[in-house]
Structure formats: structure tokens, C-alpha cells
């Protein structure tokens, strides 16, 4: 079975070629069907690969398939080869599975778009690249997929390119990722130089004792730089919120479920290297934690439904890096899987809402949508409970493992855990806020258009982020008479399927002893075990705290946003007594320093990081303008440059003369 491994990326690629050639003729919806079927086919192949791998003895579950030698360069040769091991197949399964659902969803979502087939062309190419990224048996092939997903992401973000903001968001994503790619390239070179190979199996074999700790640290930091770009971590996360300008299925697939996880995948793939890397792991953990906190704070203050989800994604990715940095790779992968399901669900749900609401994305104009969108509401609620960490939904189990891993991470562990818990609280809060503002609360606020707060600062911010006005807008406008309607089955079926998974996927790795630890067992040949399991007692306490926190977060937000109990006399919990004015709620939950932190994030985002990206460009331009003064058009000035060059060279050689 391993010899059909190549089919997994080849099928979407074939779909890409097919759609490229005939897409326009196939049209709507046939092009979408073709795209969906190819991806579904590759899901089926992945399933076969899973059974095949499962039939092998545990320690032989690594299968390599080399197609041909790509780069023969003396001692350094690179194959086009695929690696099938539990980690890869796990990734493949959830990538192809979710991608197939999202393709299906897109058939409905994109219906009527003038570039219908082009959308599926890009989407299929993206899936092919992503599969290449995870299946490639060497760093270069992964890099190929890495670049491919970046390019597709860029194309898809800018899909509605008539909008200037979308195009510029696409550019931002591209540029930010190029910075990360630099880390990848240099890291690859370092690996090649120190270990003499870039094949994963060989790297992982040679890494023990074959590499100095300092070098390993440098390499890991470089790859982490690459990962921060792709997986939207500090300081390179700025592109992801802006990337929400793309169509919603794209956000679901690329910016929640798959591409953004490739950074975590990369580091997990290289886990033996990470074990040698010393303090680089702490860097990863702390950066992940900081990102998670910052993004959670930011999510609290967003009014654009997709932006809340975007910051939430960044925050959850931060969790994954926390796990990876703590050496708990299984926990990282586990959270990646559960997150993929519930975040895809949430994004698709939000897409359904946006579609139903005439492409309005401002939550302040939603409310009480459960009346109109029952299926969407139910599935969205599942996703909400999952991400908030309410048992038995999937998010609870994986988040719990991440937090446990953080607790166990050396002396600083409890601190990390505490911050992690705060983040969990924030998560529950902002997600509840979203759900309450959108589906509950009784008020149908789009019917009262004057309701929007007219805070001058916010108005200015909205103006600054120009795309908030326009994305997804095909010239529709939300009118007070608008009646939202549930979308058709191609969009609801994926929601339901994902909802089911978001409920039960946590079962794959339950923390109740060896027997039910399926995922850990399964991944055992690939991933190192850095930690002894914590005692059941501690685990139970940690889990209890997490549950309490989730409930508190939900409760507070629910009171404020769903029940509109914004005045002090209706407070029931004394601890939040003074916090139930809306404005005060921010202060109470986020805290005084938190508010400053939020401001800080905003500033950091817009000034420092944005500024750095733009600054490099501006510096380049200024330098160019300065140099171009010499390019004056006069042939004699050019000759002068030639003569000047000659003088410099002569000065150099005269200094090197042996007799002087």
C-alpha cells in the first residue's frame, strides 16, 4: 500500500491540472464537484495508508517511497520521496478530511462567483502543496510544499482582488512569510552542513551525538523563525488577522485547520533535533505562551466575527507551540487535530452567518440568529463549547494535555500553567461573547442600524483597517428588512460532520491511563517522550481548575452579552460585582494592565511589526532613489563609474602587491 503514497498529493494535483484546463468549461458547480472528489479520493487513499501502516509492527511503521532523484549534486542528493509514518498519516487524514468538507462547503459558498472555477483551482493546488509539505521525506520537499501553501494562501487571500485591501492583505501575508522562509533556508543549509543530509530519517538518526548543542539550538531557532511566519506567532503574526479578507472557506481551511499548523508540524517532525536544542525549547514555549496571551487579549476586543476567530486561532496556535516547546509533542499534535476540527467548524459557521447576513461581518449588527439559523447555531455551539474547554467536547481534552505539559515543564512550569489558565479563561470569555452577540441576546440588531456605538477612536480604527468595510461584499448591503436564511445542504452537511467530530475527536487520546491513550500509542514510533506522565491526582486537579475557569469565563460573558445584565444590581457573582458595565467588563476580565496590554498589542501590531515590514520596503526604496541619482542617463557619468571601479580595484591590488 505504501507504494501508492504518491497518490495522496497527486490526486489534488490532478484535480488542479484538470480544473486549470477545463475548469471554466465545467463551470458552477461541476468544477467544485471535481475539486471535492479529488480531495475526497486522497482522503480515501490516506485511510488505506492508515490501515496499511497499522498492520505493521509498531517499530516498523516508517515507510519511505522514493520516486526519483530530484537533485543529484555530488555528495548531496535530494530525492522526490515520501515518508509515511504515524505522524504523517495523521496529518494527511485530517488535512484531506477537513479539506474535502471545506471543498463541499465551498460549492455552496462560492456559488455564483464569477471566478468560481479559479477558486477550486487554487484550493486544490493548496491541498496538494500541503500534502507535499507533510509527506515529503526531506526538508527541501517540505520547503517546496511550504512555499506552495504560501503562494496559494496569497492567491486565495487576494481572491477578490478588485478590493485593494484584499490585495494588500495578500501581499502582507506573502512578505511576512518570506521573512520566515529565510529562516527555513538558512536552517536547511545548516542541517545539511552539520549532518550531511536533509532527509528526515537520516537527520533524526544522526542527530544524537552528531551535533553540537549550540548548532542544534541555532538550527531550531531558525526553523522556529520559519514556523512563526507560517503559524502566525509573535512577532510575525500580523498577517493572519488581515488574511481574513479572503473568502471564508479559505480562512477555515488555510488559516485555521491546515497551513498555519505547518510550523508545528515542522518542529514536531524534527523532534529529535529539538531535544538537543537546549534553551531553544524554552524560547519556543515562551513565545507560544506570549502569543497565546496577546492574541487572546486582542480577541476580546474585536467586533468583526472573523477577526475574533483569527485572533483565537493565533492564540490556540500559541498553545500548540507551548506544548512543543515543553517537549509534549503528542499534546501539540493532539491539540492541532482537535483545533483543526472545531476551528474549521467555527469558521464555516461564521461563513454561514456571514452569507446569511448579506456579507456583514460586524457582530454588533448580529443578534438572535438562532431563530433563523438553527443548524448553524447548534453546530456553532458545539464548536464554542469545544474551544472553551467544556468537557466532553474535544477541546477540553487537548487543552488539558497542553496545560498539563506546561505544568510539568521544569521550574517555570507552574507559571506557564497559570498563564495558560488565564488564556483559557479569556478564550471562554471571548468565544461566549461571540456566540452570545451573534446567536443569542434577543435583540436583532441589524434591524436598528443606529445601534452601532459611535466611539470616535473605534471609528478611526475601522477606517484604518479599511477592509472591514468591504470584504466578502459583492455589493450587498445589510438592510433592516433582511431576513437571514439557512444555507443549502452543501454548506450545512460539512457543519454537521465537523460538529460531530468536534464533539468526539477528543476520544482519540483520553488521559485515563495507557489503554485509552490511542494517539500517544500511535505516534509513539515517531515522537519522543520527554516526560513521565503526571500522577492522576495532579491531572485531576489541573483538569478541575480548567473546567472551573471555562465555566467562569462563559458565565461572565453570557451574563454580559446574552442576558444584557450590564448593570451592577443584577450581578450574582460577588467576585465580578463591579465588572458588569460593558466597559468595566473589559477592565475586570482583561484587568487594568490587560487594557494597557491590549493597547500595546494594537500598537505593536500596527506600528512596530507593520512598521518593520513596511520600513524595510521604504528603506529599500529610499536607498534605491539615492543610488538612482547616479544613474543619471549621461553616458559619461557611466564611464566615470567604470573608471572609478577600475581605481578601486587597482587600489586593492596595489595593496596586495608582494613587493610593497
Amino acid at each position, binding site marked *: 500500500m505504501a507504494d501508492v503514497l504518491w497518490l495522496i498529493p497527486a490526486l489534488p494535483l490532478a484535480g488542479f491540472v484538470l480544473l486549470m484546463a477545463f475548469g471554466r468549461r465545467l463551470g458552477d458547480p461541476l468544477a467544485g464537484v471535481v475539486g471535492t472528489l479529488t480531495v475526497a479520493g486522497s482522503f480515501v487513499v490516506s485511510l488505506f495508508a492508515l490501515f496499511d501502516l497499522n498492520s505493521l509492527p509498531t517499530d516498523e511503521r516508517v515507510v519511505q517511497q522514493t520516486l526519483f532523484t530530484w537533485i543529484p549534486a555530488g555528495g548531496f542528493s535530494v530525492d522526490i520521496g515520501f515518508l509515511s509514518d504515524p505522524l504523517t498519516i495523521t496529518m494527511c487524514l485530517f488535512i484531506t478530511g477537513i479539506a474535502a468538507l471545506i471543498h463541499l462547503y465551498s460549492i455552496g459558498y462560492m456559488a455564483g462567483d464569477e471566478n468560481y472555477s479559479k477558486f477550486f483551482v487554487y484550493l486544490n493546488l493548496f491541498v496538494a502543496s500541503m500534502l507535499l509539505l507533510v509527506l515529503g521525506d526531506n526538508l527541501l520537499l517540505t520547503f517546496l510544499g511550504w512555499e506552495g501553501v504560501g503562494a496559494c494562501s496569497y492567491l486565495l487571500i487576494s481572491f477578490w482582488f478588485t478590493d485593494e485591501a484584499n490585495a*494588500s492583505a495578500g*501581499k502582507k501575508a506573502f512578505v511576512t512569510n518570506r521573512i520566515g522562509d529565510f529562516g527555513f533556508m538558512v536552517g536547511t543549509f545548516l542541517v545539511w552542513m552539520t549532518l550531511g543530509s536533509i532527509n528526515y530519517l537520516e537527520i533524526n538518526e544522526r542527530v544524537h551525538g552528531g551535533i553540537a548543542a549550540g548548532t542544534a539550538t541555532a538550527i531550531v531557532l531558525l526553523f522556529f523563525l520559519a514556523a512563526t511566519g507560517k503559524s502566525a506567532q509573535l512577532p510575525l503574526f500580523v498577517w493572519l488577522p488581515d488574511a481574513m479578507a479572503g473568502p471564508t472557506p479559505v480562512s477555515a481551511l488555510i488559516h485555521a485547520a491546515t497551513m498555519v499548523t505547518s510550523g508545528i508540524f515542522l518542529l514536531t517532525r524534527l523532534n529529535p533535533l529539538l531535544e538537543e536544542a537546549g534553551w531553544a525549547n524554552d524560547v519556543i514555549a515562551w513565545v507560544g505562551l506570549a502569543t497565546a496571551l496577546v492574541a487572546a487579549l486582542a480577541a476580546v476586543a474585536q467586533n468583526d466575527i472573523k477577526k475574533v476567530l483569527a485572533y483565537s486561532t493565533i492564540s490556540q496556535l500559541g498553545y500548540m507551540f507551548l506544548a512543543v516547546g515543553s517537549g509534549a509533542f503528542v499534546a501539540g499534535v493532539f491539540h492541532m487535530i482537535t483545533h483543526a476540527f472545531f476551528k474549521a467548524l467555527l469558521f464555516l459557521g461564521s461563513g454561514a452567518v456571514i452569507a446569511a447576513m448579506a456579507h456583514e461581518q460586524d457582530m454588533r449588527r448580529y443578534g438572535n440568529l438562532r431563530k433563523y439559523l438553527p443548524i448553524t447555531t447548534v453546530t456553532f455551539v458545539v464548536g464554542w463549547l469545544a474551544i472553551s474547554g467544556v468537557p466532553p467536547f474535544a477541546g477540553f481534552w487537548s487543552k488539558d494535555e497542553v496545560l498539563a505539559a506546561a505544568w510539568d515543564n521544569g521550574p517555570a512550569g507552574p507559571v506557564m500553567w497559570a498563564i495558560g489558565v488565564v488564556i483559557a479563561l479569556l478564550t471562554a470569555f471571548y468565544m461566549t461573547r461571540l456566540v452570545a452577540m451573534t446567536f443569542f441576546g434577543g435583540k436583532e440588531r441589524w434591524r436598528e442600524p443606529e445601534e452601532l456605538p459611535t466611539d470616535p477612536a473605534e471609528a478611526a480604527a475601522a477606517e484604518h483597517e479599511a477592509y472591514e468595510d468591504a470584504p466578502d461584499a459583492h455589493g450587498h448591503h445589510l438592510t433592516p428588512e433582511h431576513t437571514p436564511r439557512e444555507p443549502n445542504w452543501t454548506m450545512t452537511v460539512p457543519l454537521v460532520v465537523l460538529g460531530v467530530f468536534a464533539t468526539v475527536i477528543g476520544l482519540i487520546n483520553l488521559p485515563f491511563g495507557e489503554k485509552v491513550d490511542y494517539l500517544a500509542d500511535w505516534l509513539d514510533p515517531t515522537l519522543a517522550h520527554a516526560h513521565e506522565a503526571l500522577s492522576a491526582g495532579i491531572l485531576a486537579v489541573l483538569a478541575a481548575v480548567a473546567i472551573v475557569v471555562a465555566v467562569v469565563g462563559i458565565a461572565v460573558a453570557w451574563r454580559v452579552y446574552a442576558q444584557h445584565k450590564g448593570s451592577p444590581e443584577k450581578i450574582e457573582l460577588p467576585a465580578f460585582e463591579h465588572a458588569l458595565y460593558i466597559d468595566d467588563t473589559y477592565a475586570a476580565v482583561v484587568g487594568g494592565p490587560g487594557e494597557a496590554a491590549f493597547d500595546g498589542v494594537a500598537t505593536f501590531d500596527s506600528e512596530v511589526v507593520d512598521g518593520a515590514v513596511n520600513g524595510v520596503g521604504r528603506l529599500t526604496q529610499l536607498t534605491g532613489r539615492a543610488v538612482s541619482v547616479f544613474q543619471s*542617463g549621461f553616458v559619461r557619468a557611466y564611464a566615470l563609474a567604470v573608471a572609478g571601479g577600475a581605481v578601486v580595484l587597482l587600489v586593492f591590488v596595489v595593496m596586495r602587491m608582494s613587493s610593497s
Partner: protein
Amino acid sequence: MRVEMFTFLLAGLICLGGALGVVLFRNTVHNALSLVATLFGVAVLFIAQEAYFLAAVQVIVYAGAIVILFLFVIMLLGVDRADQMGVDPIVGQRTAAVVFGVAILGLSLVALLSGPEVVTGTPATTAALSSDIPDVNQIGEALFTDYVFAFEITAVLLTIAVVGAVVLARRSDGPVIDEDEFDGTALDALALEEPSDVGDPDQDTADGADPGSGADETDPDDLEEASR
């Protein structure tokens, strides 16, 4: 020895004077005549170094053909008026030119005079110069043995020169069609473009549109008209 020295100094002076004349005289015809002086001086120096054949070729080809060609073109185009030599329009060009010229000369001299013996190479890798055999014979023999390939490919070079000269000098009909590709006159273009859009970062970094792009815009109607 004294004769040789005298010859060298005289011819050298003629060479330098001619060279300076080429650079400094305002009238193009005078420049060409100064060039003749240098060429003549070099020919004398060839003779002083027993390169008789080359001296003859120098006079015949250079003075007899190349400089005459220069003079023909000068007369054909009627550009024998005096050049403007007052102020160089490119700021600092003249100073920089002289500085670089002196630097090239100085550094070359450092290299040339670095050792007691200028020439360190093995003598006579091609064929020893012999005073018994006339240098015409020696050069001819080298040309048709060792350098036969080089000699043959000069034919290609000369063919190119002929074809190129004919093609370029052929009178072309039709108006100039690209003047509107550039905005305004050459003088207008002298004014350097201001980096005016610094205020808008998005525009600055990656945007396709740049205020300067107007300079390259062509009015399609004009172009169509002109090309007819």
C-alpha cells in the same frame, strides 16, 4: 643610446602633446589632427623598438584610414564647429574625471615600477624575435601558424563592421515613434523625481502604481498615429 633617448623623448612629447590636443582642443578637426600626431609618435616609437611592420601599418591604417574616416564624418555632418568647453553640465564630472585619471595613472605606475625588472615572464613563448629575419616575416609566420584561427575570425569581425555600418547608415523613413514614451523634453527629465509617496507605506512597498509611472505612459492614439 643618446640617439635612441632623443628619439624617445621627442616622439613621446609628440604623443603626449597630441593626446592632450585630442582632449583639450575645442574644434573637432583639430582633435583629429592631434590624434594624427599621437599616432605618428607611436609609429616612431614602434620603429625605435624595431617593429617596422607595425609602424607602417600604424601609419597606413590608423593615420591613413581611421583618421580620414573621422574627418569624413566630421565634414559629412558638419560638426566642425567648436565644442562648448566652458562648464561641464554634470556637476563634479570634470574633477572626478581628472582625479580618477590621475589615480589610474598613479596606480598603474606603482604596479609598473614595483620591481627592478619590469618584465618577469619567460621569454619567447610564441617565437623569438630574431634580428636576422625581417619582422614582417616573423609576424606573418606567427599569423599563419600559431594565430591562424584568430586571423580567420577577424574576417567575421570585419563582415560585422561592414554590415553594421551599412545597416546603421541606411536612411530610415518614417517618423520617430517613441518620443512620447518619455515625458517631456530631456531637460524636464533632468529634474529628479521626488519620493513623494513616503507617507503611504502600502503604496511604497509593493504597490504596482508609483507616481513616477506617469513618465512611461504612452498615449495610445499618438503612438498609433505616429506609427502610420
